[in-house]
């Protein structure tokens, strides 16, 4: 039997906002697994991502606050200019250290930290993007026994990022947005 998923971490860059919105729009407000979303954005720019997500989702969309606990029914957005890390007690930590893959927040950083804490109970989903960020973190999740999902590059607005993951991870699951949504719904526990 596949291990229970206790955390979903999703990363995207160019085209990632649209893809993640399409996936998350279909999830119920009491969705049983906390979801963390790391999207690249311009540095030093106050995004209105949270507003966009709040309007479109049934789930509660909030920006990550440091040392706050992870809760079901929430989509946590990585804040601009900080990396998002996970603590053993299932709270968040923020980090303003070096850029990784020219990015802060970096998807690799969050994926790796998630896998360190949640191990085989982690699911990583890498969406559209023109970056190299995310694939090594997704590989790490997979090596820890977690589930690695990449958006079908042929469907992605920019396929570079999921393609890089597919090439480096044997056993990476490839799905389009509609399938990812169905898959996440199938994990929901009422």
């Amino acid at each position, binding site marked *: 039997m596949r291990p229970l998923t206790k955390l979903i971490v999703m990363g995207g860059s160019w085209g990632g906002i649209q893809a993640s919105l399409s996936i998350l729009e279909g999830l119920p407000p009491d969705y049983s697994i906390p979801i963390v979303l790391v999207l690249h954005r311009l540095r030093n720019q106050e995004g209105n991502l949270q507003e966009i997500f709040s309007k479109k989702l049934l789930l509660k969309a909030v920006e990550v606050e440091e040392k706050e606990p992870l809760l079901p029914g929430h989509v946590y957005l990585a804040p601009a200019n900080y990396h998002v*890390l996970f603590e053993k007690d299932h709270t968040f930590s923020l*980090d303003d250290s070096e850029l990784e893959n020219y990015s802060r927040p970096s998807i690799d950083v969050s994926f790796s930290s998630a896998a360190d804490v949640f191990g085989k109970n982690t699911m990583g989903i890498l969406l559209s993007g023109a970056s190299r960020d995310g694939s090594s973190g997704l590989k790490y999740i997979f090596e*820890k026994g977690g589930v690695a999902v990449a958006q079908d590059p042929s469907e992605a607005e920019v396929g570079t990022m999921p393609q890089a993951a597919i090439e480096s991870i044997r056993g990476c699951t490839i799905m389009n947005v509609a399938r990812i949504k169905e898959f996440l719904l199938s994990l929901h526990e009422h």
Partner: protein
Amino acid sequence: MKLEHDSLFEQEVEALIKEIHTQYGYDFSGYSRASVYRRVKRFLGQKHLASIDELRERLFSDSFFFENFLQEVTVNVTEMFRDPTFFLSLRENVLPILSTYPYIKIWDAGCSTGEELFSLTILLEEAGLLGRTKIYATDINQKVLRQAKEGIFSASHMAAYTSSYYAAGGKRDFSSYYTSNYGNVKFDSSLVKNVVFYPHNLATDTSFNEFHLVVCRNVLIYFNRQLQERVLRLFDESLVSLGYLALGKKETLAMSGISSNYSILDKSNRIYRKNS
């Protein structure tokens, strides 16, 4: 098995943290573990060390190596006028009030390599307050304090810093504050004439003076709640009544026991004012 290997790694780091405390007096027990583990892993990679044992051996036989470790494990990534709206708010909302004091004392806690400090001094200079302000710039790490004192930064950052300076309400020619040389720029040393630099450890040291403004940005995020509380109490003890406390964009007083002593001056820029 990888998981066991990792928990072994964590056990080894925990033992190392205890030993560092005993040998060097630096207490990392209240630091956020996710960050410490990540920084230690990164340092091992950088130095091509195969194990914590090897790291341990080097740390306790070479104090320069330890200093280097300290600089890497405590994050020292910073920039000038980071979050320009914060500096704009300081300029517009805080400095005019500070200007009513005959003598101003500021604590820049966790000043790192000095980018934030020089940004502060430029603001004070432009408000005509630098001459009657004393700034205490402290950090846990002596090496970064020496760098901060020098005020030498890479020229490659200057385009970004200049635009942040203007976004922070700067009106002068930013390049008038520094001279360029071999890919670096050196900021005018008269800016830090009234700055005293010295090592202070927020995890273990006590309050040492009274200030009108305490600036400590993006330091608390690396601490657990308990250590955060200790540090916030330390700041509270160090602030005059009606003094200001400035935290990082994602740091807050909200969870702290001292929050009832403070009013929010600027919510998004995390500037608080102590009640009278």
